[in-house]
């Protein structure tokens, strides 16, 4: 029973890895708070969007086994 968390850009640099496996959390908010503390992410949750399985989702989405979660810092393509 786990989820995969993907990191990009500034979050990847801070985490030092591009992904990690974690136990299925109760909520995305709880998951981000845990990871923010662990890796020292500078972004508050309200600066980020969140995606599940390759599509943006709501922060209220309840994670399930095998989900692939990504926290999305402000983008700067183009």
């Amino acid at each position, binding site marked *: 029973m786990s989820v995969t968390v*993907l990191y*990009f*850009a*500034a979050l*990847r*640099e801070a985490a030092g890895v591009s992904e990690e496996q974690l136990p299925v959390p109760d909520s995305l908010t709880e998951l981000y708070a845990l990871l923010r503390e662990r890796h020292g992410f500078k972004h508050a949750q309200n600066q980020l969007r969140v*995606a599940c399985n*390759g*599509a*943006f989702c709501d922060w209220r989405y309840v994670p399930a086994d095998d989900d692939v979660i*990504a926290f*999305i*810092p*402000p*983008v*700067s*393509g*183009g």
Partner: protein
Amino acid sequence: MQFRITHSAIDNTAWREALCDARCGAYAAFEGWVRNHHAGRPVLGLHYDCYPELAEHEGGRILAEAMTRFDIIDARCIHRVGDCSIGDMAVWVGVSAAHREAAFAACRWVIDEVKARVPIWKRERYADGDSLWREA
């Protein structure tokens, strides 16, 4: 209608050709080029990080939305990721339509949405040795 992420140079000629259609009187294109300065600071080059699966999903949604918002015939976009040098084409948007009003409006709207919504991040390398993830 097609949105792609690529790791290599963008073949804008081929992407433009795909839009050719006898019903179209107007074609508008936008290209983002890697420029040698940002906010007054000399830039040596940049690197784009990307979440490709999400980027192609979200990019496809943007193009589909453009097709419903504007009176256009087709819209396509490709964004390069990885290392880019000064002068490289980082992004290309092309729109075809019967008339120019819609072609321009849709082309502008697509690049604005891509820059606002697609999970791509730019790290600029500055001449002073510093480098930085740009966030919007």
